[in-house]
C-alpha cells in the first residue's frame, strides 16, 4: 500500500514515567490480578469464618506484636520510598542508590519480622481450616514481600553498574509504585489476621 507521512515522532523521548511508560501499566496489571488473589483469599477466610461456630478454631488469636510492628514499619517505609521516587524523577543517582539500599534493608527487616509472625500465629497450617487459611494468606503476602525485596536488591545493584542509564530511573519509580501496593495490601490483611479472631 502507498504511504503518506503525515506526522513525525522523532522528537519524542525514548522512555517515560508513570502512565506514559509501558512497564508502569504492566505493574498495574499485575497489581490488579494479585490484588484479586488477595481478595479471593480474604473471601475464603470470611467464608470459613461464617460457617464455623467458633473462631479461631482450637487456637488462641495470633500474638499482636509482630503484625503491629510490621504495620508501623510498612507505614514508615513510605517515607524513604517516596524519597527514592522523587530522586528518580530528578535522575539523582547518588540519592537513588541510597534510597534503594534503605528500602532493601527495610525489606530484609520486614522479612525477619515475618518469620516472628509465623512463629506467633499460635496455630499450625494442619490444625484446622482456620490455621490453613491464616498460613495461606500470610504466605501469599510473604511471597509478595520477598519478590519485591528481590526486585529492589537487583535494582540497587544495577544502579551501581554501568547500566544505570536514564531509563533505569523509570524502572526505579515502577519499583516504588509496586512497594506501595505491598504496603497497602498488608493493612487489610493485618486487620483480618490479627483482629477478626478477637471479635
Amino acid at each position, binding site marked *: 500500500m502507498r504511504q503518506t507521512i503525515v506526522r513525525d515522532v522523532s522528537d519524542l523521548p525514548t*522512555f517515560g514515567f508513570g502512565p506514559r511508560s509501558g512497564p508502569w501499566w504492566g505493574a498495574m496489571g499485575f497489581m490488579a490480578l494479585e490484588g*484479586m488473589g488477595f481478595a479471593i483469599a480474604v473471601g475464603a477466610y470470611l467464608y470459613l469464618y461464617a460457617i464455623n461456630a467458633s473462631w479461631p478454631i482450637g487456637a488462641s488469636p495470633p500474638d499482636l506484636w509482630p503484625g503491629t510492628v510490621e504495620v508501623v514499619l510498612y507505614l514508615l517505609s513510605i517515607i524513604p520510598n517516596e524519597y527514592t521516587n522523587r530522586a528518580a524523577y530528578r535522575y539523582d543517582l547518588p540519592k537513588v542508590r541510597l534510597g534503594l539500599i534503605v528500602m532493601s534493608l527495610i525489606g530484609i527487616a520486614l522479612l525477619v519480622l515475618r518469620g516472628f509472625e509465623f512463629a506467633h500465629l499460635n496455630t499450625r497450617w494442619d490444625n484446622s481450616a482456620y490455621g490453613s487459611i491464616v498460613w495461606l494468606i500470610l504466605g501469599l503476602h510473604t511471597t509478595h514481600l520477598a519478590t519485591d525485596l528481590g526486585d529492589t536488591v537487583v535494582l540497587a545493584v544495577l544502579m551501581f553498574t554501568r547500566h544505570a542509564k536514564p531509563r533505569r530511573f523509570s524502572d526505579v519509580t515502577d519499583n516504588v509504585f509496586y512497594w506501595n501496593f505491598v504496603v497497602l495490601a498488608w493493612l487489610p490483611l493485618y486487620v483480618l489476621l490479627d483482629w477478626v479472631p478477637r471479635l
Partner: protein
Amino acid sequence: MSMAAEKNQLRDDVLNGFQLSQQLERIWRTPSGLPGALMSVDHKVVGRRYIVTAFVFLLLGGILAVLMRIQLAGPENTFLSADKYNQIFTMHGSTMMFLFAVPVMEAFAVYLVPLMVGTRNIAFPRLNAFSYWMFLFGGCFLWISFALNVGPDVGWFAYVPLSSLQYTPTKRPDVWAQMITFTEVAALAVAVEIIVTVFKQRAPGMTLDRIPLFVWAMLVTAFLVMFAMPSIMVASTSLILDRLVNTRFYDSSSGGHPLLWQHLFWFFGHPEVYIIFIPGTGMVSAILATFARRPVVGYPVVILSLIATGFLSFGLWVHHMFVTGLPQLGAGLFTASSMLIAVPSGLQIFCWLATLWDGRPVYRTPLLFVLGFIVIFVLGGLSGVMVASVPIDTQVHDTYFVVAHFHYVLIGGAVFPLIGAVYYWFPKITGRMLSERLGRWNFWLAFIGFNIAFFPMHILGLIGMPRRVYTYTADMDWAHLNLLSSGGALIFALSFALLLINVVYSARKGTLAGDNPWNASTLEWATASPPPPQNFDRIPVVKHRDPLWADGESLPVVAGLSAERREVLLTSLAEAEPQVREASPEPSIWPLLAAIATTIFFIGSIFTPWAVLWGTPPMAIALIGWFWPTGSKEDEA
C-alpha cells in the same frame, strides 16, 4: 541525557521503500537456527506456535471424545473400562477447556492484536515467550501423566471430597491441579500483555471508539482472565496443600468445607465460559463486517454489550451449585442474573442480524461458519435460559441435557467462530488461501455432524441419562439416541479431518493471498501476508474506524522511529496521542530457561513441599538473567 548521541541515530524518515523494509527486517527478525527459534520474542512466531499447539490439543481432546462416543454407542459396551472412561472424560474436559479453548483464543489475540492496533510487537514480548513455554510444558505434563496412567479422573472441576487424598490417594488430582497452575500463569501473562498493548501501543489516532471490535473483545476477555483466574489458582494451590501438607481447607471435620471448593472453582469457572465466548464474538464481528461489506451495525452497542457481559459473568457462578442446598434468596438472585446475561448477548445477535440484513453478504466459508454460529449459539442460549431456572436445573442437573447445552454454547459460541477465523486469517498468517471447496464441505459436515451428535443429548438428558457414566443397560431405552449421537460425532470428527487436510494442502499449494484478499477494513490487512518481522514499515495513523475502507489507496503513516534498534510507539490511553518511542526487547533465551525452572518447581512441589526451597533459586537466577541489561541498543536508550 544522551540526546546528542540520539541525534545521529538512523531513523526511518531518511530511508524509503525497499531499503527501509530491509533495514527494519534486519533488526526485528528472529535469529535463524534452533537457538534462534528458542529465543524468539516475535508475537507472530509465538502466536503461530500457540495456535498450532492449541490445535494439537484440540485433536487430542477430540480423539478422546470419539473414544467416549464409541464406548457409548451401544449398551453395556466393553470398549473402555470404567477407570479409563473416568480418565478420558476428565482429560477431554480439561484438555478442551485449559489447553485448547482459552489458549487458542489468546493465541489469536497474541498474533492479531498487535497487527490490528498497528504496532510492531506485543507489550512484554519476553513474557509472551515465557507464557507459551509454560502453556506447552503444562500441556505436556498433563498428557505425559495420562500416558503413564496418572491421568486425572476426578472430572474437569475436581470436586472435593472425591479429589481429596482420602478418596483419591494417587497423584492424579495433583496432576490436574498443577496443570491448572501452569495454564493460568500462561493465561494471566497474556492478559497483561494484551491490556498493555491495547492501552499503550495503539497506532496514533486510534481513539477508543476506533478500536476494532475484535480487539475490544480481546481486551474485555483479558480483564476477565485477570479477575477470574486468581480464584482457580487459589483453589488449585489449596487443593495441593490439602493433599501434600495436610491443610484442612476442604476437610469438614476440621472446620473446612467442600462447598468452598465449589465457590472458588465456579467463581473462575463461570467467567471462563465468557473468556471462551467473548473472543468468539469478536471473531464474528470481524468476519461479518468484511463479508457483509459494511461496518457492524451498532458499534457502541456491541462494545457496551461486551463490557456488560464481562461484568455480569462474575455474578452467575452459583447457578452451577443450585442442587447444593443454597438459601432460596441466593438461588433466586443467581437465576435472575443468569437470565439477565441473555440481554447483552441478545443485543449483539440483533446487531449482527441487522448487519447482514443491511449489507451485501458474500457467502464465503468464514461467513458460513458465522451463520452456523448464530443458529447453534441461539439454541444453546435458549437451553441456557431453561437451566437458569432452579426447578428445571434441579431436574436435569448432571444429565446429558446439560452436556448438550454447554456443547451448543461452547462449540457454537466459540469453535464455529474460531474455524471461521481460521479460514479468514489463514491467508494473513501463511500468505495463502484455504481451499473454498473443501471449506464448504468442512462447514456442512461440521454443522450437520454437530447437530446430529449433540441434539439427541437434550432428549437423552430429559429421559434421565446421567453424565459421566461409562455404560448403561439395554432396558434404559437410551441405545438408539446414543448410536445416533455417536454417528453424528464421527461426521463432526470428519469435518476436522477435512480442515486439517485443507490446512496442510493449502499451506503449500493454496492460491497466493496478497495483502488484503477479502478487501477487509482493519490494519492487519495493510501489511504483507505473512507480515514481515517489523509488521509495518511505518506505523499507520488512524483517522477512521475502518481505516482501509476510508483511506483508499494511500495509508497515512508516522515517521521518526529508530531504524537501528527495536522501537515501538507508545500512545496515550484514550486519544492515542504519541508519547514515547520505547525500546522493545530483543530475543532472549531466558524466558525459556525461566519456564524450565518454573516447571521443575511446579512438578517438584506436588511431590514435596521442599521444592519451594530448592526450586526458588533457579527461578530467581533465570528472572535476573531475563531482566539484566545486556548493553544492547534496546537496553541503553
